[in-house]
């Protein structure tokens, strides 16, 4: 799904040679053999959340898969921080729970697949935190859509990796649970480099240090938006509603301009 083009791009204006930035340059997303995007240059400041917004079908999930090393070229390197392999946790857009395992066992999957001991305490804490303590022994087919998503979130948070890629992790949750889990994720992933695809501009504004918009066909990245303050921000506090309106405006504008 992605291709690497010789790094002919100019050095990135915002983080020139910053070692605390994961940079990938010249990424061409591909789907079904055809290119989906122009060569993309992506900077993920270490320890920060980056949110990706963009119209449905533009290639956000494809971008995430590429970064997870699941694209046709496999593992990506930026030449500075080395390959991402083994440093990434990945939560796909669909939950990908194993139907024969209980919720708890799904959460413990990563460790078991690596042959490592399962951190039972952490697992129990996370299940409690997402409200699945009572369902820990159920199989996924006995869960509601939102519960499945929470189980997948637990599995991802169990991974404890420096880089976390999440594809619409809260999309199936009600607003109350959503806020709770955003806070949980922000707490749990403090200090990690997070790339999160979301369709909710407010979510992006709450959680992210930087917001990227992928748009157009072939897709390209808009200039990053950097909201002030430190996430997680309160959804009602400060100028967030105004920024939300502006961000929505921008999305509408890009859609009108780019055409689908």
């Amino acid at each position, binding site marked *: 799904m992605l291709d690497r083009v010789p790094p002919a791009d100019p050095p990135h204006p915002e983080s020139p040679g910053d070692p605390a930035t994961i940079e990938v340059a010249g990424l061409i997303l591909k789907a079904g053999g055809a290119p989906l995007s122009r060569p993309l240059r992506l900077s993920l400041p270490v320890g920060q959340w980056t949110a990706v917004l963009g119209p449905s079908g533009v290639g956000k999930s494809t971008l995430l898969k590429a970064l997870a090393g699941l694209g046709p070229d496999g593992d990506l390197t930026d030449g500075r921080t080395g390959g991402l392999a083994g440093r990434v*946790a990945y939560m796909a857009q669909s939950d990908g729970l194993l139907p024969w395992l209980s919720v708890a066992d799904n959460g413990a999957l990563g460790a078991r*697949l690596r042959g490592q001991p399962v951190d039972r305490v952490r697992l129990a804490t996370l299940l409690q935190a997402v409200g699945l303590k009572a369902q820990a022994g159920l199989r996924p087919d006995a869960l509601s859509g939102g519960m499945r998503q929470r189980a997948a979130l637990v599995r991802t948070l169990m991974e404890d990796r420096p880089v976390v890629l999440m594809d619409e992790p809260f999309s199936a949750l009600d607003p109350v649970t959503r806020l709770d889990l955003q806070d949980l994720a922000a707490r749990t992933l403090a200090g990690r480099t997070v790339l999160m695809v979301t369709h909710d501009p407010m979510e992006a504004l709450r959680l992210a240090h930087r917001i990227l918009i992928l748009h157009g066909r072939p897709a390209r990245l808009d200039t990053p938006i950097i909201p002030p303050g430190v996430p997680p921000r309160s959804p009602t506090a400060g100028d967030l509603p105004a920024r939300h309106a502006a961000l929505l405006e921008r999305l509408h504008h890009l859609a009108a301009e780019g055409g689908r």
Partner: protein
Amino acid sequence: MSQRLARVVRPLVTLAGLLLLWQAAHWLNGERDYLLPGPLTTAQTAWAKAPLLLDHALITGAEILLGLLLGCLLGVVSALALAQVRTLERWLLPLLVISQAIPVFAIAPLLVLWLGYGLASKVAMATLIIYFPVTAAFLDGLRQTDPLWLDQARVMQARPWRVLLLVRLPAALPALASGLRVATAVAPIGAVVGEWVGASGGLGYLMLHANARMQIDLMFAALFTLALFAVALYWAVDRGLARLLPWVPDSRTRAAPSA
């Protein structure tokens, strides 16, 4: 009719239907006992020779169960190996296919030479017949794992063997169950064919003998015993498998709406 009663009555009705069909075939063949004895004649013979039939049935039963055990074990292990090492599949699958095309009589001397005339050669034959459906079905299942699960495992830096055991294997269990059902159904003929290779006991042996002596009623009594065993075995395996895979949707156990 209560659920429990139905469970007892149903096989009996099936049996009755089978006997009726048999009787009909008997009539259609002009009641010629030397071609197809009627169920009544057969039942009389079976009753009269019950101890003999039981003796031989025990031998064949042991062969069937051993063959099933070995065949399934080997099949599962082979499929796992073939699924894991892709090159292996390319070289070995043709061999497996060929092994299915070899008639008993062609390898009977070899089997006997290598394994002797005891239980081993019969179990080997049954195993050979059972082996392929299990391997093929399981391998198919192992190949068709949801790519998302594999992707996730890859990102998780899973060890290949653990992916096989924790993801691909359970995902392929419905396919394996399907293979096991077929294997269970062919296991009896596997044992009988094994007894052709040279035996001194078993239902297949008994049938061969009875056939040669024109004791067709005895042959069919043995065949009936074998059929009973086959159906009971299939039923048990089918039940057990359905119970072992609770997460697999099954239209038979799905509650239909009452309205």
